[in-house]
């Protein structure tokens, strides 16, 4: 195992190149030195998703090898948690909050409007890869309800009429 990890190709027999960047591999090695190393699986998945925007099977395979955890278990864990995505998301990620406070203030209508304008469903990406849309359950900014988050920018007190304007800010054309 030790020897394989230093190779530039994947350590399983798939012969694909090593997909994970050096810093994540180093982080995994660091975790492996700690007691209960398997408990760092979720932090590792977070790091991969932050880096690539999603979890592809290739990365998960590599994590399995490096962390000595069966790939089946990793898939089980990754699919259990909503934050992990398995498909590349759009360049601009639109997240409509459907938490209670936002919902009673009409965020359901905002979601409908976004879907209608972009012509996609929840958790889908537009064919040009520019936009993806997802629902989220509360950012904890309930006083600003209804809340829409595009990438890292928070829009508060959004009205359905503003949907087109927000999309236009990110270069959406009808």
């Amino acid at each position: 195992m030790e020897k394989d990890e230093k190779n530039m190709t994947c350590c399983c027999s798939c012969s694909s190149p090593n997909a994970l960047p050096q810093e994540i591999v180093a982080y995994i090695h660091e975790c492996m030195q700690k007691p209960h190393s398997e408990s760092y699986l979720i932090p590792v998945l977070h790091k991969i998703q932050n880096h690539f925007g999603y979890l592809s099977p290739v990365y998960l395979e590599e994590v399995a090898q490096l962390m000595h955890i069966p790939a089946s278990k990793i898939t089980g864990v990754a699919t259990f948690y909503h934050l992990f995505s398995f498909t590349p998301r759009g360049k601009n990620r639109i997240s409509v909050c459907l938490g209670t406070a936002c919902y009673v203030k009409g965020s359901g209508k905002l979601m409908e409007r976004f879907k209608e304008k972009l012509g996609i469903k929840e958790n889908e990406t537009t064919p040009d890869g520019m936009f993806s849309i997802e629902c989220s359950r509360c950012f904890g900014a309930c006083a600003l309800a209804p809340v829409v988050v595009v990438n890292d920018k928070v829009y508060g007190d959004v009205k359905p009429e503003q949907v087109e304007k927000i999309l236009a800010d990110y270069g959406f054309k009808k």
Partner: protein
Amino acid sequence: MPTSLEKLQDMRRKSIFKVFEEKFRASIRITVGSATCENAAGATDVYERFQQNIQKHAGLEVILSKVGCAGRCDLEPMVTIVSHGQIPVKYMRVNPEKADKIFEDHILHGKVLEDFTMRRTAGLYNAQRVITVCGGKNCFDKHCSDIEKAFLENIQKLGIADKIILTRSACQGLCQYGPVCYVYPDGIMYQKLTPDIVKQICEEHLLKNHTLGQYTWTGERLTNRSFPFFGDVYFFGKQLRLTLRNCGVIDPESLDEYLAVRGYEAIAKILTEMKPQQVIDTVKKSGLRGRGGGGFPTGQKWQFAANQPDKEKYMICNADEGDPGAFMDRSMIEGDPHTILEGLMIAGYAIGASKGFVYIRAEYPLAVQRLEKAIADSKKSGLLGENILGSGWNFDIEIRLGAGAFVCGEETALIHSIEGSRGMPSPRPPYPAISGLWGKPTVINNVESLANLPVIILDGADWFSSIGTEKSKGTKVFALAGKVANTGLVEVPMGTTLREVVFDVGGGIKNSKAFKAVQTGGPAGGCLPAECLDTPVDYDSLNAAGSIMGSGGMIVMDEETCMVDVAKFFLDFTQSESCGKCTPCREGTRAMLAILQKITDGKGEDGDIEKLERLGSIIKNASLCGLGQCAPNPVLTTLKYFGHEYRAHIYSKKCPAGVCSALVTYNIDPEKCVGCTACKKKCPVNCITGDPKRIHAINQEDCIKCGTCLAVCKFNAITKS
């Protein structure tokens, strides 16, 4: 060898000196709110603008600093100007342009811009003094209204009525000294008031500025020290802030500021003076119950873990605040992260753990960042890690992020998640206190429970247990949101009624609509109608009403909310968050959701209500964990209190609130339509016909019931039924 407490006190002296030099020596201090919601509202730009303005005026004695969220979320970004000897001025909804003006007029020329402050604080900042008389139950029983009357009479007689403002506060926890009053901005608390003492206060203190030392209360409490910084006495006066004592007051990223407000003194005290069992006994005596929702006595939970012979034990802080509409934990961690660490250390010491975890949502990046900084800072100062404060006691804290699974708020699921597995609950017993993380005794406490611990240790269990009701002690923090005028974070003594929270603190319903329901306890809680508004907020009373305390989300709904739709919303949430392990929850919630969907689609039929009730009771009784056991609550409480709305949907095919689009039709009133074409232009599906200046009509077949026409019509010609 100095004891841990002496070491800490020495550190505090240095910190106070440093904080004073850096922040308080200046005659004016500007604080800008800094939390997720503040930043989203634009606080960062405002902070930078003040910074630029200060740089432009070299030599000006002004200090700028960041503070956590003070809880006035709907008015953010908030800027407070604290000047010596004056009531702090709170500016709301500040933007860079307003910041320029505030700097020019207020900072440079001493003129308060009343237009930028809250309407209700009008006149407050020009007053010489503000007197707040405690109107809590005990003071009320001791005739605090006579005290108020005496103040009014005396200030009128002395001709200073226009310079003094009189307000009333909620219980401030000084019941044995009552009636009490607080004098701003002097920061003086007078105790055991009588009309005669009031007369003397007015003549000596208010008129001649001589404090009457013989009547002041000079005790020290963690919680009362921040009064002079609150500013908006009307909002803060209605609260008792124990766990939020430092939020919005200190800079959350400064260890010195936390030390200056007696931070880490509680842990130093127990390391010096108390054995673990004494700490457990103190917490038992205080009557503290878990603030995460269950309400299990905290001391008892600790005792179970402490009794285990294992050498390795773990302490976990549950900050997986998954309830939509709840942001107590986020605000607390963002506003005062060291308190959480100190609480975790106190608990760890009590049960004999040497390692603690904070399990926090990944959706809260700022809270995580502040916790990380707090851990690093306290480690560097020897307050965390090995041989803490020279006591020989070791304790380490690690942060673990959640990944968006509501069920991980459940204790056993949370443990599995930290272990790196799917966050699915396990049957209890064994309880985590016996066999938890990696099979070792583990105690999991909620953020708010932990934040109470320094208060209990320093101010005493007896005092803590004097607040609240017989079975629910202390205070509770609520995240007030929805259709309420003042959304925000509030902390009130247990036993305060829902009405007081929604109408007194929350300012009632937005846009003077009618109140319909208040939802407590998140998706697992229930919706309580107007008849239940006098329910006191404590664990048992809320349970009796069919809801739960939960972690503290409180969502207010008005007449425009459809209760069937809301119940469907909650069930949709719990259904998708069900981990799938046990059948009643996995399949039962799905079946209930299907019925609710049918009802809101206008296809409800006779017998649906009975089916919902039956399924609800089965899911409640047969599910493994709290998520399933509580999932039917929103449906069952709305059936109980708003059954007529369900019947209207099913039998009359009507949605009384006009929310369920399948049951709503929009029509144009020919009497009122002037043919302005506004609705026709805005209709997204072009289903409105009519020439200019002619009566328009809606083609019902194409209408998608979006409500745009209703919103744009200036002549009230669109009707919804």
